[in-house]
């Protein structure tokens, strides 16, 4: 298995923290192994010289679909019916009907 990308266990923990994921002690080494295998495969991209090649975020740009740059409107700013608030709130794990409720934010 290719290991040239060299993701360490510390890297796995750091990235998990960035992603708000909590990995178990068993998950960490298997994720490290998988990330190294996948990144090893992805390393093939370095065979290509991409100097001067524009980056493509989505296909619309290549098809010449202009994206408004100077504040033109995508659509008219009109009031339209929207979803009912109580229905939205009722799908939440915890709500007082007006707001989402969460555990304590300030940790000390």
């Amino acid at each position, binding site marked *: 298995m290719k290991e040239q990308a060299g993701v360490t266990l510390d890297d796995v923990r750091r990235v998990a923290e960035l992603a708000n994921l909590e990995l178990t002690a068993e998950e960490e080494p298997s994720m490290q192994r998988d990330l190294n295998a996948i990144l090893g495969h*992805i390393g093939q991209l370095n065979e290509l010289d991409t100097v001067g090649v524009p980056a493509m975020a989505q296909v619309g740009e290549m098809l010449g679909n202009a994206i408004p740059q100077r504040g033109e409107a995508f659509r008219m700013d009109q009031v339209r019916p929207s979803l009912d608030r109580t229905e939205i709130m009722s799908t939440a794990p915890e709500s007082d009907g007006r707001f989402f409720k969460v555990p304590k934010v300030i940790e000390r």
Partner: protein
Amino acid sequence: MSAKAVDLRNLTIDAAREAVASGAKTATALAEQHYDRIASQDGKINSFLALSRERAMVQAQKIDEMAAKGDELQPLAGVPFGIKDVLAMRGAPATAGSLILKGYRPPYDASVVAKLEAAGAVLLGKLNCDEFAMGSSNENSAYGPVLNPRALDRVPGGSSGGSAAAVAADFAVATLGTDTGGSIRQPAAFCGVVGILPTYGRVSRYGLIAFASSLDRVGPLAKTVKDAATVLQVIAGKDIMDATSSERPVDAYVSALTEPVEGIRVGVPEEYFGEGLDPEIRSAINGAIAGLKLAGCVVKPVSLPHTKYAIPTYYVIATAEASSNLSRFDGVRFGLRAEEAKTLSAMFRKTRDEGFGPEVKRRILLGTYALSAGYYDAYYRKAQQVRTLLTRDFLEAFAAVDVLIAPVTPTPAFKLGEKTDDPVQMYLEDIYSVAASLAGICGVSVPCGQTKEGLPIGVQIMAKHFDESTMLRVAQAVETQQKV
């Protein structure tokens, strides 16, 4: 009420609608017959995650009343459908195959769901899939794998495995799936049905639980090319609720199917026929190519030189976008919340740890890594540049030919558990499908034979952006050839 059973095998949209319109069968009875079949046979296939019987019956009764009055019926009147569980159906569960959305019932309909129903479709329920549409075998569903109705020891493909299996098992006349890197085309090929990847922007995604927003598309799976075209006709078009949907007028896909394919230029991309392609698939596709020549198509070799870079490019871009899109699942607004957490940040982490399966975690970690400080240029920006090269390959090819013909998958449906231990092997399963996803072009998988063991083989027809009409005409020519 007519109780006479119709043969659900090979029941097409036209036949179902005609049966309802002529009074030979009520929409209510047709829906019941499908529900009976699901009840007796889906226990082993596991394609449906939830049934929306009440809603289906209200709709069927409405259609029956219209038919009884002699009103003109809509294009999908009374036709039973299934919906992949990543699309919102008001009041029905929407799990995306994940525990993290267990219990969530969206209070609105996806635009495609509303369009199907407005066209008369009877929506039977929600279909199993890989968790957040991440997978090529449907083994990543938190609610158990789907089995391939054509061979029960095999996977149905993924991520729209339930959508393909439900059509193949005649649990629904047609279904909706989604395709980010092959998730409609690959299961269609594995299950022996037709599956369309529409051009990026052709079909609204409002109400789709997002995986990778620059790639995700919604499309139909059906028993015939004409059925798939009929569904596409209904769901395509601009939607004010999706800013990425295109203003371009929608072609008349169904009537285009009557035009001959004579003179259509068909490109054979050499990179799609290299080592690793199963010999039986190769020979079936060569047969399809020979058939197109006989029908008057002009076949010529073309090259898509960056093809081998499509998989690494896709797995950077798709995971980077997924890591961002899936940050919304945090236990605050919908679905699961971990019970015991005392602080907000602990609640986020515990909820996501309990709620996400291993493949989803793997992709979130990979995407987060590729976007993190110090690696962004090496991975994400590099992949975006190669995406440009891959797209240019297609644009250059389509200057010389009208459509491309290629395999959908390197192998026929594999066995359950065969590839679950090695993520890279599983990702390589998408080798012939991801390039079209990255380039935003349209593609379709059409059955073109079977292996000696009886496993279905699919062939992929791809066309340039918004040229679904030409693509579907060629697909239908392949289909017609199979029936000869």
